């Protein structure tokens, strides 16, 4: 055999070196390395931002902004490096980046354009989506009326657009100069505030706005007069910025009991309250301009309520109790809110029965009512009512149902203002999230899980939560098609393709994977409880059995523990704050992955919608570029050094940096510093390179008994093999007589960078034999956890995101297999042979690993 090889070697004379691409290789490798670093940076920042969204951290806008800036920088660097690596092959990535970046900037700046609308908008057409036109309070009343279907007072909104027209008409933008305000100077702030408010009071409402307001008012009067000669309204501020609403609660003006004659005047009073010293301070310190100071106003039917009050759909002090709390006073609700009088308190159970559990009825001597002309007035509560309950039992239960309806619509406990009119009709005046709710005390985990066996107690948490379902094991990509609703996905390693079933996955358990990898990022986006690096899940968890995955503590339990799943769903009130909303909005342009299958035609820069898409595309493209680095017709040996090694291959090595420790033109394996190359050589040298088929093996003889050896007619390929290496990288193009195979690997300290790839192609044997050979290799590789694509006799196998030592083990096996399969196509004359060889290889080389 050896002799034969020598002859062949002489037959094909080594080509003369032509070019020096060593420098080019080095440069390109540098771009590749930089790209890998930036890729990791992006994945880490994304993971960190998603982590913050889970609600365990306190962070501010500064964090959000600086994370975004870092992300933008890294993504840009990725694109630049790929551009250089690929010599400008993907110019459209720059466009994709610009598109996404401008969306991100828009979210960060958070400038709200005032939509052009009618000057007045009836509540009938308002919904919560219209907050930029009608302000928060109005939008909410519209929502209750039109979407929840509960009664609210009649009324209309004076839009933000009307405000804008008013400001423009009076050229107030030039007159109210906030630019020069020194916000540290309190007296100065007060001065400016007074001037601005005076200016507004002296200004004229544009006639078209005024007409619209008066028309809307008379329309409203017609509806609400119900026989009364001159109905009145309340005029309420309805701020555009939620932030503003939160900070200035109670500072913006509300005028009660206004009639048609002074509507315009009161409107001006309300919008003037926008310019309080505190509001100016806030807007200025936040870097807003005066043009961002906008206010919509609500004109609401005045309900001279018989009784009114506040209710909570849940007991804010004890959620465990499952009660609705209602308080009530005689007259207008202001006294219930500001504590002037002690209200009636009713505690109602939330269940079907709406049992009234408690009823407190203190004596109420005075109440607030509408004045007959305008404004409000305190009057005595009639003697017979003072000690009696404001509401009857039936009314209490009726109101409790409203509380539950609102909670259901908004999907969280509500804090509701209500009123009862003189005709005993209930009206909802306002509802908002009940913010401070004591968390349910969580039962001790040990108590919940004491009757359940722990199947697995190791693993890293990639996404917190608890999920339960039947185990569904993914061995290969096609298994995903059969993934059942609500199952627990169990797999050996991570894959971004799992995203295709994430909408029906209750938990994910992976034996090997990276916390900052694509899949972990997606699991967090879909909020799927996920454990990684469980190591033994594939062995331990049985398909189709129920398990509960506790991705808070990193345990997997036998059976379904609903109580634990419930405990995992604790509400997070943080998520209502603006900074969370901004982060969530931003992540929509960052995290979702649209580019899933590299072989898909849409896997291209044109379809990148997020930074994650760009990152994944660039990483794939970069690996492709590196893989092809030796696919160069001009590759030559001038830059290369010859590797003297005791295997029947002629190997030349090109060092990209840190791969070799010698300057000499001839080296031995002792000079190789490249981690993956060493692993591969070790494997190659450990195996005996095959001679003729093992005819002395009994099993083998039985297989070939009825076949005849075919004569060898194909021409051998015999060329030098090139290995381009660095300390962590290897791209080894092996010329193996009848076929070409490339083994590429990256084995560094960051798991996200690591991969091994094996490409097998060509060969001189007849097609059926070549196909058999690729089938053989495919089966062996799949047993080694590679994901393998086979097209005819071309085979492309890959394994990604394993730690360094595992990658090196895989290389060792690849080396042994290379030697083993070297001439197999010569002997693979029927399919049964393939099975025999697979078994032999596994018995001999794989099991010992």
């Amino acid at each position, binding site marked *: 055999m050896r002799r034969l090889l020598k002859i062949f070697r002489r037959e094909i004379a080594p080509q003369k070196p032509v070019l020096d691409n060593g420098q080019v290789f080095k440069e390109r490798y540098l771009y590749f390395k930089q790209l890998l670093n930036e890729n990791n940076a992006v994945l880490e920042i994304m993971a960190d931002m998603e982590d*913050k969204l889970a609600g*365990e*951290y*306190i*962070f*501010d*806008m*500064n*964090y959000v902004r*600086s994370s975004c800036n870092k992300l933008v920088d890294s993504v840009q660097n990725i694109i630049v490096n790929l551009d250089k690596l690929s010599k400008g092959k993907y110019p459209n990535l720059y466009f994709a980046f610009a598109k996404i970046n401008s969306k991100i900037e828009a979210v960060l700046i958070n400038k709200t354009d005032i939509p052009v609308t009618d000057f007045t908008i009836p509540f009938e057409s308002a919904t919560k989506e219209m907050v930029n036109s009608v302000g928060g309070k109005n939008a909410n009343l519209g929502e209750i009326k039109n979407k929840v279907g509960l009664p609210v007072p009649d009324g209309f909104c004076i839009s933000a657009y009307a405000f804008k027209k008013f400001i423009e008409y009076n050229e107030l933008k030039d007159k109210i100069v906030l630019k020069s305000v020194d*916000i*540290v100077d*309190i007296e100065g702030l007060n001065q400016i505030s007074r001037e601005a408010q005076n200016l507004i009071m002296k200004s004229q409402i544009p006639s078209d706005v005024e007409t619209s307001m008066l028309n809307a008012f008379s329309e409203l009067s017609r509806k609400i007069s119900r026989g009364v000669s001159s109905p009145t309204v309340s005029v309420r501020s309805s701020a555009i910025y939620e*932030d503003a609403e*939160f*900070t200035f609660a109670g500072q913006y003006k509300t005028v009660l009991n206004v009639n048609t004659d002074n509507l315009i005047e009161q409107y001006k009073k309300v919008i003037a309250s926008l310019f309080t010293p*505190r509001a100016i*301070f*806030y807007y*200025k*310190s936040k870097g807003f301009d005066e043009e961002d100071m906008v206010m919509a106003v609500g004109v609401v039917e005045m309900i001279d309520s018989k009784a009114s009050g506040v209710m909570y759909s849940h007991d804010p002090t004890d959620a465990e109790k499952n009660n609705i709390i209602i308080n009530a006073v005689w007259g207008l609700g202001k006294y219930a809110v500001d504590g002037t009088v002690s209200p009636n308190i009713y505690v109602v159970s939330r269940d079907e029965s709406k049992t009234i559990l408690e009823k407190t009825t203190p004596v109420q001597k005075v109440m607030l009512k509408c004045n007959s002309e305008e404004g409000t007035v305190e009057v005595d509560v009639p003697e017979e009512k003072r000690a009696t309950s404001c509401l009857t039992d039936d009314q209490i239960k009726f109101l409790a149902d409203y509380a539950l309806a609102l909670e259901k619509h908004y999907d969280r406990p509500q804090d509701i203002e209500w009123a009862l009119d003189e005709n005993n009709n209930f009206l909802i005046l306002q509802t908002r999230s009940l*913010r*401070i*709710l*004591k*968390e349910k005390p969580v039962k001790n985990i040990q108590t919940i899980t004491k009757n359940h066996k722990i199947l697995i107690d190791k693993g890293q948490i990639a996404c917190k939560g608890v999920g339960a379902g039947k185990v569904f094991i993914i061995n290969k990509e096609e298994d995903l098609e059969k993934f059942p609703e609500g199952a627990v996905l169990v797999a050996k390693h991570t894959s971004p393709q799992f995203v295709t079933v994430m909408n029906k996955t209750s938990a994910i358990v992976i034996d090997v994977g990276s916390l900052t990898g694509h899949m972990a990022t997606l699991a967090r986006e879909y909020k799927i409880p996920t454990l990684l690096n469980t190591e033994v899940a594939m062995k331990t968890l049985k398909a189709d059995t129920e398990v509960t995955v506790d991705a808070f503590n990193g345990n997997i339990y036998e059976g379904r523990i609903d109580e634990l799943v419930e405990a995992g769903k604790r509400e997070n*009130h*943080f998520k209502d*704050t*603006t*900074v*969370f909303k901004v982060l969530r909005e931003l992540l929509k342009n960052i995290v979702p992955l649209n580019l899933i299958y590299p072989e898909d035609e849409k896997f291209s820069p044109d379809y990148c919608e997020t930074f994650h898409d760009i990152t994944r595309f660039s990483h794939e493209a970069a690996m492709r570029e590196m893989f092809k680095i030796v696919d160069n017709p001009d590759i030559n040996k001038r830059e290369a050094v010859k590797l003297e090694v005791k295997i029947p291959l002629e190997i030349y090595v090109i060092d990209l940096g840190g791969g070799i420790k010698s300057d000499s033109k001839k080296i031995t394996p002792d000079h190789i510093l490249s981690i993956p190359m060493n692993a591969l050589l070790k494997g190659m040298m450990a195996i005996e390179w095959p001679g003729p088929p093992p005819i002395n093996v009994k099993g083998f003889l039985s297989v070939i008994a009825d076949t005849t050896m075919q004569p060898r007619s194909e021409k051998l390929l015999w060329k030098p093999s090139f290995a381009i290496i660095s300390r962590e990288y290897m791209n080894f193009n092996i010329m193996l007589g009848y076929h070409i195979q490339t083994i590429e690997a990256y084995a560094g300290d960051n798991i996200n960078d690591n991969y091994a790839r094996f490409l097998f192609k060509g060969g001189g044997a007849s097609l059926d034999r070549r196909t058999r050979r690729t089938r053989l290799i495919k089966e062996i590789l799949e047993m080694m956890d590679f994901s393998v694509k086979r097209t005819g006799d071309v085979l492309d196998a890959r394994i990604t995101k394993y730690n360094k030592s595992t990658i090196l083990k895989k290389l060792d096996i690849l080396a042994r297999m290379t030697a083993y399969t070297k001439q197999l196509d010569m002997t693979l004359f029927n399919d049964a042979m393939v099975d025999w060889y697979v078994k032999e290889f596994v018995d001999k080389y794989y099991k010992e690993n």
Partner: protein
Amino acid sequence: MAARILVVDDELDMLALLAMIISEKTEHKVTTTNNPLEVIQFVLEGGYDLIITDLKMPTMDGIELIGKIRNIDQYIPILVITAYGSIESAEEAINKGAYDYITKPFRKEQILIAIDRALEWKSMKKELKELKEKNQ
């Protein structure tokens, strides 16, 4: 024991978040302001057991604020919140008399632990002072 805590930050979200955690997880009463200028007034009025303040605020530097608070109240613990990467100013704050600092972003538990420790420190100081007075 329920304490009264004053939280100062120019960023409204931070105020909202801090107020939310403290009220959700403890019995303490929280007052918030985004205007450092108001803090002096609050401290003069008295009754607070702990002040939590940001260091970077538009109207008044946190360091300056600590100085002003110390002029009025020698003992009230001040817990400083600093942005990541500005340890120097946190150290300066400690030198000016802040009790401790915590770096943003931080976990919920971190701030709760810091609050507990600061309040413990305060009551220890008080006991110590009383003991000394008794012995004199």
